């Protein structure tokens, strides 16, 4: 194809770090990890759901358990010192990666979803009330949509949704209408996990700040793929998950501006987040520990930092270039195939994923058939049910790319989609 020559780094060499990419599929799914019962090589295009984890990250996690496993923060013994330093410095690594001022602005959470809930509970439940409103978009992931919807119900605050245009972009006129002086929070997805749209966070932040509202950008699909600087974006809160960016499951981060986090009451209560406790009352630890109650996800936090170091070694600009290349190629080839409807903006202006439907083929059938070809895509509503309702479809198939995916894998996808189309014709 000659497209490989455009790769911004040595993709084939990098694939060696991901043994799961050598999986053959077709085995007995009831016996995971027991190896293939078939010879179909895996083509993994479900990276927006979760990315794979390279050996250096898996090894970092294993090394924690094998060399210096201990509880953090309060131990005087050496293992605890080592674990504490590594866990606390992981916050610095994450902070640096997204341009936060320091560890005091980075709270480790379970995932993006918990980060959203943390702010909804610790800030929203306290600050919102009847007459206030929270502005979302029609393309929000359930992580923010359901959370603010339910917090709205509990506090009496109104929840509004910025329209999505036919091209899959935010209607910024509608945004300007909806965001008003009663708006307390604008919660918006940075890169849509269904449409691939890259939203104009800076503009939305300006709109929100003009009305003294906060902005929470959901970076679950942006941080894995592009260089992000929260200060440049001008957001007040930002969240992302390690498992979508070469990191372990079970860990994510909330960025919050220090003044705001400082003014917020705690969210989870327990050990490690307190300063003094009596039977009557308690006082709280400094940031970010105030928001990390109980034994934290130590191994996963350390693994998160290792994932960031892995990505930084490649360079986020190169990762983004690779995603752009694959997304545009997939968009073009699926379009050329015919009988395929693709959702969202054009191929040269989107994050690294393509959601589509094939005429006459239900997305779940399509996904089953692609699975027979070893191709892993996601079929469903991708946690954006209301957006799917707006698009008038129950489900879409979504192919999403990451740094180890290749042009050949997209060729395999396109060919298999063609076969499915013909099967149902």
């Amino acid at each position, binding site marked *: 194809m000659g497209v490989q020559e455009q790769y911004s780094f040595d993709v084939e060499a990098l694939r060696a770090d991901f043994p799961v990419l050598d999986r053959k599929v*077709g085995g007995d799914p009831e016996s995971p990890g027991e190896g293939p019962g*078939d010879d*179909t090589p895996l083509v993994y295009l479900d990276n927006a759901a979760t990315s794979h984890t390279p050996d250096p990250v898996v090894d970092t996690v294993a090394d924690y358990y094998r060399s210096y496993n201990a509880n953090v923060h309060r131990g005087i013994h050496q293992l605890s010192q080592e674990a504490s330093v590594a866990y606390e410095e992981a916050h610095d690594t994450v902070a640096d990666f997204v341009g936060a001022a320091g560890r005091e602005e980075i709270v480790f959470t379970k995932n993006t979803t918990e980060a959203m809930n943390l702010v909804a509970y610790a800030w929203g439940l306290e600050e919102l009330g009847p007459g206030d409103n929270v502005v979302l978009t029609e393309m929000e992931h359930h992580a923010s949509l359901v959370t603010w919807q339910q917090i709205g119900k509990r506090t009496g605050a109104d929840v509004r949704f910025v329209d999505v245009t036919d091209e899959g972009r935010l209607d910024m006129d509608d945004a300007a209408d909806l965001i008003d002086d009663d708006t307390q929070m604008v919660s918006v997805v940075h890169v849509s996990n269904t449409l691939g749209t890259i939203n104009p966070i800076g503009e939305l932040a300006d709109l929100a700040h003009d009305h003294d509202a906060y902005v929470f950008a959901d970076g679950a699909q942006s941080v894995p793929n592009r260089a992000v600087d929260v200060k440049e974006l001008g957001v007040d809160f930002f969240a992302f998950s390690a498992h979508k960016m070469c990191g372990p499951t079970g860990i994510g981060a909330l960025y919050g501006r220090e003044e705001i986090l400082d003014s917020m009451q705690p969210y989870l209560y327990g050990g490690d987040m307190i300063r003094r406790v009596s039977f009557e009352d308690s006082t709280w630890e400094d940031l970010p520990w105030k928001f990390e109650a109980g034994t934290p996800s130590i191994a996963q936090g350390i693994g998160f930092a290792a994932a960031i170091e892995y990505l930084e070694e490649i360079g986020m600009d190169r990762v983004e270039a690779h995603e752009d290349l694959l997304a545009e190629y997939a968009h073009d080839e699926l379009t050329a195939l015919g009988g395929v409807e693709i959702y969202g903006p054009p191929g040269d202006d989107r994050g690294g994923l393509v959601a589509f439907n094939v005429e006459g083929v*239900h997305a*779940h*059938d399509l996904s*089953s*058939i692609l699975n027979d070809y070893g191709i892993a895509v996601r079929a469903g509503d991708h946690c954006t049910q209301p957006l799917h309702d707006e698009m008038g479809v129950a*489900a879409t198939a979504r192919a999403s790319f990451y740094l180890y995916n290749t042009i050949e894998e997209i060729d395999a996808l396109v060919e298999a989609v063609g076969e499915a189309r013909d099967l*149902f014709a």
Partner: protein
Amino acid sequence: MGLGSDMYRQQILDHYKNPRNYGELEEPDFTHVGENPSCGDTIQMDVGLDEAGETIESVRFNGDGCAISMASASMLSERLHGMAVEELHEMDTDDVTEMLGVDISPMRVKCAVLGRQVAQDGSKIHRDELDPDDRTITEE
């Protein structure tokens, strides 16, 4: 190829493209709707019984969904003709896959059994064994 391809044998595709007994009964003895939310599948089953209420005499189904759920409902609608209601109640997942004649991959079983579940639940409601407010949902 793995399990899935097998799922789209000619017979399944034929039932999907040309569903049998598709539509509604004018005076069903019972009618019931169920869904499989993760797939967005929805199926309605209309059933007519004999005088004794023990044997199924007529079946229509309609709805919207993936090939597996639609073909399974279509094949079931043929199978149910003349079947004792007791026998319907005894149908389990194995009976459905046997009827389909293909291996169903685990994540699609809920599609395959939707039609049967709707028919069983409809009959149970008819017999007052199930609260009519209970929705039929096939999802673990």
